[in-house]
Every structure is written in structure tokens, then in C-alpha cells.
């Protein structure tokens, strides 16, 4: 009689019910660092990308309105006021043709950003398209595999040529200028993005929700645009924050060599190159401002991209 109402285990004094609060306390939520250290770390990581974002906003804003703040046009020369150091009149000084460095620096930054964003936008479209097709076709019958391996072969070959060499060759053939620069940067720039997107799509394709969608008869386009691309968006955005500074770097590099943007249009690279001859004679501002602007822009994008990468990749936030 007694045995049917009480459970032999719960009635046994050697057994006690488990304390649930202790169970959850045993779970290790994070590595053994003091809380303040974790906080400083996450604030630091956050702060760096925050700093990058802030810098970007300031740089973009000044690139847009900067040249309008002074009464000089970036290309107007004044032979009476050559090689002036920074002053109240000319905030960044003037160059050897008496052109205002403030106006030139910011309009150069404008060109850099324009090229960076346009090239990155084209890279994005081409890279996602080509990488997406390759990744989606892979493993889909014989034709699918052929398309994938053909695209991968093209990517492999383009990847093994130094991209700046290709750009230089194209610049030799075409007329130097803004449009040429953007075309030349885009011809090679999509390769990195395509590789990343293909890898990501290959991985995502294995997921159960894609299989479910396929079994339910969802069209290819819908699977690509509703299921695959949105899930690959994180890595695409992160890659984009590194594509933009690399395009900006290429522009200033080529302009520095004299192959990019041509005078009288201001470019940070050309300005840096022009300063080479005079930096030893004490005209530090000729190199300092364009150099600082290139470096700050690159820093801002890289810092921001780092933060984004951490945000999208939980693994790196150990």
C-alpha cells in the first residue's frame, strides 16, 4: 500500500531533488575573464569601429562641403600666393601654383570616395552575381558543375595576376581619367567578392531550410533572393568595407605614379607626388594633409570593417 504512493527513489534519504539554480550556474557563459575586462574589451572593439564610423561621417561631410567653406576653387591659381604655410586665410596652406590646399584636399577626398564607392558598387553587383551563379550551379548536374568550374577557372586566373598590373595596362590603353579609373578598378575588383560569395553560397546551400524550400517547389530565383543572399549579406557587407578602402588606395597609388587622375583635377595621390620635391625644403603641409587624408580614410574604413566583422562573426568575439 505504502509502496504505491511513494516513489522509492524520492523517499530514499540518499537522493534529493536537483537544485535547478545550480545547474544553470554551471554553464560557462564566457571564458574566465573578470567582467570589467570583458567590458573594456567589448567597449574597445566597439569604440574602434565607432571611431571609424564617426571619422567616416566627418570625412564624407567635409568632402561634400569642405571646398565650399573657402572662397577659393580647388584649381584656381594665384601666383602671388605660392607655397604659403597654413594660416587663417589658407587653412592647409597653398601649393606651388598658389592653389588652396584645403579646397584641393577635400575635393581630392571627394574623388577618392567617389571612386571607392562606385568601384565597390560595381564589384558588389558583379561579384555577387558571378559568385552567386558559380556557388548555386555547383553540384547541380553536369552543366551546373561545368559553369561553376569555368567561372572558378576565370576567377583563379584573374586572381593570380597582380591586379594593379592589369589596371596599369588598361590605363596605358585608355585615356586617363575618372571613368577609365573606375572601369579599370572594376574589371579586376569583383574577383575577391565573387570568391567570398561563392564560398558562402556553397555553405548555405547545405542548410535544411534551403532543402525544404526546394522540396516545396520554390523557384531558383526565390531561393537565391529570399534564402541565400539575405543570409550571405553579413559577409558581403564586411567584404565591402574592405573593398572600398582598397579601391581608394589603388586610386591614390596610381595617381601618385601619374597614371590616374590628371591635373588640374585634385587627387590625393597626385598631391602627395607633387610634394616629393619640396618636402625637404620644409613645406611639410604639401605632403602632410593629403597623406593624412588618405591614411585617415583607409583607417576609418578598416576600423569600421573590423567592428562589423566582429559583429557578424560571433566566433571572433571570444
Amino acid at each position, binding site marked *: 500500500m505504502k509502496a504505491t504512493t511513494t516513489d522509492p527513489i524520492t523517499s530514499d534519504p540518499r537522493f534529493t531533488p536537483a537544485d535547478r539554480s545550480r545547474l544553470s550556474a554551471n554553464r560557462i557563459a564566457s571564458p574566465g575573464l573578470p567582467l570589467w575586462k*570583458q567590458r573594456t574589451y567589448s567597449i574597445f572593439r566597439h569604440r574602434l569601429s565607432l571611431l571609424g564610423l564617426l571619422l567616416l561621417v566627418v570625412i564624407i561631410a567635409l568632402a561634400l562641403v569642405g571646398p565650399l567653406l573657402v572662397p577659393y576653387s580647388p584649381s584656381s591659381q594665384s601666383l602671388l600666393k605660392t607655397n604659403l604655410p597654413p594660416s587663417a586665410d589658407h587653412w592647409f596652406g597653398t601649393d606651388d601654383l598658389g592653389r588652396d590646399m584645403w579646397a584641393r584636399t577635400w575635393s581630392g577626398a571627394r574623388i577618392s570616395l567617389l571612386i571607392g564607392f562606385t568601384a565597390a558598387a560595381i564589384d558588389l553587383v558583379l561579384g555577387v552575381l558571378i559568385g552567386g551563379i558559380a556557388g548555386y550551379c555547383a553540384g547541380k548536374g553536369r552543366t551546373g558543375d561545368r559553369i561553376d568550374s569555368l567561372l572558378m577557372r576565370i576567377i583563379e*586566373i584573374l586572381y593570380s595576376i597582380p591586379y594593379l598590373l592589369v589596371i596599369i595596362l588598361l590605363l596605358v590603353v585608355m585615356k586617363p581619367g575618372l571613368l577609365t579609373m573606375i572601369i579599370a578598378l572594376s574589371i579586376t575588383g569583383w574577383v575577391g567578392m565573387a570568391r567570398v560569395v561563392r564560398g558562402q553560397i556553397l555553405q548555405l546551400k547545405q542548410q535544411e531550410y534551403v532543402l525544404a524550400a526546394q522540396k516545396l517547389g520554390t523557384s531558383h530565383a526565390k531561393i537565391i533572393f529570399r534564402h541565400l543572399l539575405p543570409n550571405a549579406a553579413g559577409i558581403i557587407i564586411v567584404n565591402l568595407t574592405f573593398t572600398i578602402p582598397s579601391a581608394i588606395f589603388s586610386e*591614390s597609388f596610381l595617381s601618385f605614379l601619374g597614371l590616374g587622375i590628371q591635373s588640374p583635377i585634385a587627387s590625393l595621390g597626385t598631391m602627395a607626388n607633387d610634394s616629393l620635391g619640396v*618636402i625637404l625644403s620644409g613645406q611639410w603641409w604639401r605632403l602632410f594633409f593629403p597623406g593624412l587624408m588618405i591614411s585617415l580614410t583607409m583607417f576609418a574604413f578598416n576600423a569600421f570593417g573590423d567592428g562589423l566583422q566582429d559583429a557578424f562573426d560571433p566566433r571572433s568575439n571570444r
Partner: protein
Amino acid sequence: MYIVKRFFTMLLTLWIIVTLTFLIMHMIPGDPFSNDSKTIPEAVLQNMRARYHLDEPLAVQYALYLKNLLVLDLGPSIQSKTTDVNTLIARGFPPSALLGIQSIVIALIAGIALGTVAALFHKRPLDYISMFIAIIGISVPSFILAPLLIKYAAVQWRLFPVASWGTWQHTILPSLALSVTPLAVIARFMRTSMLDVLQQEYIRTAEAKGLSTWSVVIRHGMRNALIPVLSFIGPLFASVITGTFVIEKIFAIPGIGKYFVDSIFNRDYPVIMGTTIFYSVILVVTLFLIDLSYRIVDPRIKLSSKGD
């Protein structure tokens, strides 16, 4: 089997590069002598065109170029009538190679050290400092850094020669300037890779065996962490090669990079083509060797044609 297949892919890549370069260079309207057509009589121009086979159809020129390439003849230079592209490359290669190798060595040693330190002191001040240095290194282009190095290290403090070529001291500043970007990139790669490795079980085993931190890090950590870094050596080569274009210009070093940039402005097409092909060969062969080497370094990667 994999090696053979990979080898033929490499040859195919090179052939495509040569063909593309040839076609791009011949897309230019006119020929290298178009600018001289006012000063030189037509008959002489005809002779000069014939000398460089510019009067032949494109296909014939292409076949001739390929034929010469097979015997490693990159053709004559149009600008300097006495030298050919082979001589230019033979003359320019030693300085460029010295610079390149020195800067790669600096970048590898310092980058690996910086990345390892950052990983070992993960989330501590040394980590932040190393990564801050790395992000600065990525942000400041070599052509901004080089003039600063000249101004301070060479002119003000008189530590090194300002420019040109001669003694070993001349190579230090350009090599430093060239190494900064790849150094920073390697440091970041190394940190991520090292952090991954330090979490592996064999590291815990090594620690549990009572090995010193030093030998855990060097023998077990670094060797494994280096494998992903190896894959960056290809892009590293490319970045150093293109870096020499500006560095050799800034420091007035008579290397291939300088000849290449000069040939662009002189529209010396055979030199442009020759150097482009030369660079591509170096890079493609390097990529091939790296691919082989890390399949040997890491036995877990199978030497099969499938995979990747």
C-alpha cells in the same frame, strides 16, 4: 597527379596572361612611332616599322612574339635603341629582388612576432597595442611613409643614405617602407590563426604535459598557426612587386619597377609587355610553389586534384 594538373593550369594561366597583355597593348591606336611621324621621313618610318615587325598582320606579330618568348627573348626596347628587354630585366632584377626579399623577410618575421604576441596577450594591453600598430600599418600607404622616412631618418637624423643605390645601407629605408603594409596584414592573419590554434586540444595536452609556455607556443602553436598565413604569401608577393613601382621611384633605385613605370610614360610597348609578363611569371610560379609547399607542410591537405 595533382602536381601535374596544377602545373598545366599554371602554363595555361601564363599563356592567357601573355595573350591578354599582347592584345591589350595592340589595342592602342597607332604604333610607338606615330609621334615621330612628323620629324622622320615616311620611308625611314617604314623601315623602322619593318625592323620591329609592326607592318605585319596582328596574328603574325603574335606568333612571332610567342616564338621569341619560347626562347626567352622578350624583344627589343624601342626607347633605348641599344638595349633589349632582357638586358633591362637582367639589370633591374637584382636591386628589385634584393628589396623584395628583404622586405618580405622583415614583414614575415615582424608580422608573425606581432601577431603571436597579440594572440598570447589576448584582450590585454599588448594585444591592443599590436593591433593598433597593425591597423596603422594598413592605413598608411608606403608612398606616404617613404617620404617621411627620407625626411626624418635620412635627412634630419642622418642615419641612412637619402636615395639612390650602392651600399647595403641604401637598401634599408626602401625595404622598411615596402614591408609595412604586408607586415600589418600578416600580423592580423597571424593573430586570428594563433587564437584558433591556442584553443585546440593538442595545446592543452602540451600544457598538461608540463612543457614550458615557450615550447608550447613555438613548437605546437606557431607551426600550426603558420599554415593559413602561408596562403597569404602569394598576395604578399604581388603587393611587394607593385610596391616597388612607387618605392623605386621615390628612392631613385634602378630596379625593374622603375623601368616599368618609365616604359609606361615612354610608351615603350615591348618593355611594358616584357616586364608585365616577367612579373606574372614570378607571381604565378610563386603561387604554384606555395600551393605545393603547404600541401607538404601540412600532411592533412591531400595532394589530390579534388578538394579545395
